[in-house]
């Protein structure tokens, strides 16, 4: 029982760490440019397909990852901002959200037509380590490590570098930032590229577990929205806490509860948090209205 508990906890933390990466990107966008991206889940599946394609042309997986990073930065970062966010945001944040719902349809059907409806296997890491009767798989360990490194690097970048501080200043008060001589438009663009990098990393980590399927983005997206809201919408730290919490709760519910209602867990948490603690675990009360 103890061994099962530890295993469920670790794999829950691993999947939660991936949610955290996706939710962090989601929060960055909503904080930095009022973009509430309903296609965020699909944004994870797109680079996964790019990696698979590059890999099938003979590139090793690390090189495929770099290709996917570049493609994501251009398409999901720069083009997404220039072609959709910039023209639609002036009409209203809700209009933009609705447009990202349409984008979700576009991306899913694009991937369906390009790749087909089957779930593609994705190279991962096998094996693990036994501690007595507790088995710890390398897959989960490497996911946790990669996520910790990524979140730490992001935090250092945001807190310690000039650009990072400029991004934060732009998100908190664009007008003041402009007076300080910060190029706010560029900072927002960097935020979009950061989100693209985060979803690409998430794609690399999640695909060996969930495989690559055109409509995986629905479930991933719902989990990421929940993680972001549980942690505190508009809070990057919150997204990490929310992601980990959600991953663990979901994994325990799936193991010990009725499997057919596994997907209801993040939804119930989301509803409870929005109604009773809309500022999230780490947010302050004033931040609840977007």
């Amino acid at each position: 029982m103890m061994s099962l508990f530890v295993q469920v906890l670790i794999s829950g933390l691993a999947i939660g760490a991936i949610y955290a990466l996706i939710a962090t990107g989601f929060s960055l966008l909503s904080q930095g440019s009022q973009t509430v991206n309903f296609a965020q889940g699909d944004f994870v599946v797109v680079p996964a397909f790019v990696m698979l394609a590059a890999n099938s042309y003979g590139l090793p997986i690390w090189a495929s990852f770099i290709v996917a990073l570049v493609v994501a930065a251009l398409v999901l970062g720069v083009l997404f901002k220039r072609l959709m966010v910039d023209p639609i945001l002036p009409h209203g944040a809700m209009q933009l959200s609705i447009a990202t719902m349409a984008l979700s349809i576009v991306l899913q059907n694009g991937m369906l037509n390009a790749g087909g409806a089957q779930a593609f296997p994705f190279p991962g890491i096998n094996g693990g380590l036994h501690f007595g009767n507790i088995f710890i798989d390398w897959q989960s360990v490497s996911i946790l490590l990669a996520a910790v490194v990524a979140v730490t690097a992001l935090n250092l970048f945001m807190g310690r570098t000039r650009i990072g501080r400029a991004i934060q200043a732009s998100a908190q008060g664009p007008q003041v930032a402009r007076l300080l001589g910060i190029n706010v438009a560029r900072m927002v663009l960097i935020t979009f590229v950061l989100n693209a990098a985060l979803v690409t990393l998430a794609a690399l980590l999640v695909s060996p577990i969930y495989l690559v399927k055109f409509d995986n983005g629905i479930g991933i997206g719902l989990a990421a929205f929940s993680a972001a809201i549980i942690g505190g919408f508009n809070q990057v730290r919150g997204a990490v806490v929310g992601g980990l919490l959600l991953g663990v709760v979901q994994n325990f519910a799936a193991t010990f509860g009725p499997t057919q209602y596994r997907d209801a867990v993040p939804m119930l948490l989301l509803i409870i948090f929005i109604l009773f603690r809309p500022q999230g675990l780490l947010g302050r009360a004033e931040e609840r209205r977007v």
Partner: protein
Amino acid sequence: MNQPHRVLPLALVLLLVAGLAGSVLKPYPIYLISLWAVYTISAIGLNLTLGFAGQISLAQASFVGFGAYATALLLPHGVPFGFTLVIGAAISFILGVLLGFPALRVQGHYLAFVTLALATIAFLVFRNESWLTHGTAGIDKIARPIPFTSDVAYMWLCLAALAVVTLGVWWLLRSPWGRAFLALRENPVRAASLGVDVRTYTLLAFAIGAGLGGVSGALFAPLGQYIEPSEFALPLSFSLLLMVVVGGSGSFLGPFLGAMVSVALPEVLRSFQDYYLLIYGVIVILLLVFSPDGIVGIIARGVARLRPTDAPVEPKP
């Protein structure tokens, strides 16, 4: 185009033309016209909630589901169709009131997420509670009410239902309620200071919108004579929301046009086969970029250009 009394005759003529065209057409177009009428009813409901009262809902598909399952499950027990329709609408209306409560606490994106979460849970219930809903196997051989068993007759029934809904919503929107909904959307604080009961009207906006979703579902079940859970999952909610936005959120004719695009586009783009949803998505995005007030907005600007003496069309704030 936001003035219901000006465009009501237009909407009713549209229905009549659709029906007459359907009567001389082959079975498949008849099915499409019926489907259009059914979707339009649901989109009119959502437009009331979203477009006029300003409350976003991603749960409209669930209400279509409640209406459809109520009809499909009650008909075999000998309950007449008229009653199953009323029961389905009533269930949706009551659950719509409950859906409205979150809107009293949160707005905007938060409300979108709560309704999305509730819609996901409703879908899981449709799928998992097979003792009631027959699960993923679905319910087949759903009978059409006598004497509307033929395709053409059932199409006329759907169009008649849409006509009744159109008249009802027209009446509602020009009544003080319509004014209160608009006040709710534009400025709830000011509305409350004028005695508009924001709480009650918010719940009503959800409940009426949901109730129309239920009516739509009740008509949907006997149309294809088969239903299964995935038809009432999130994609239908998104699709209905996009119908409202494509047609023109907050305009009386919007849902008619939005639903028409949604139903007709797969047929128009038949040669593109699987790509039509992709193309549909791109069209929606382009519309949001270039005409945020939808097709109705394009038409209104076109009409204004043809009649330069009229006052210029006010852009929405």
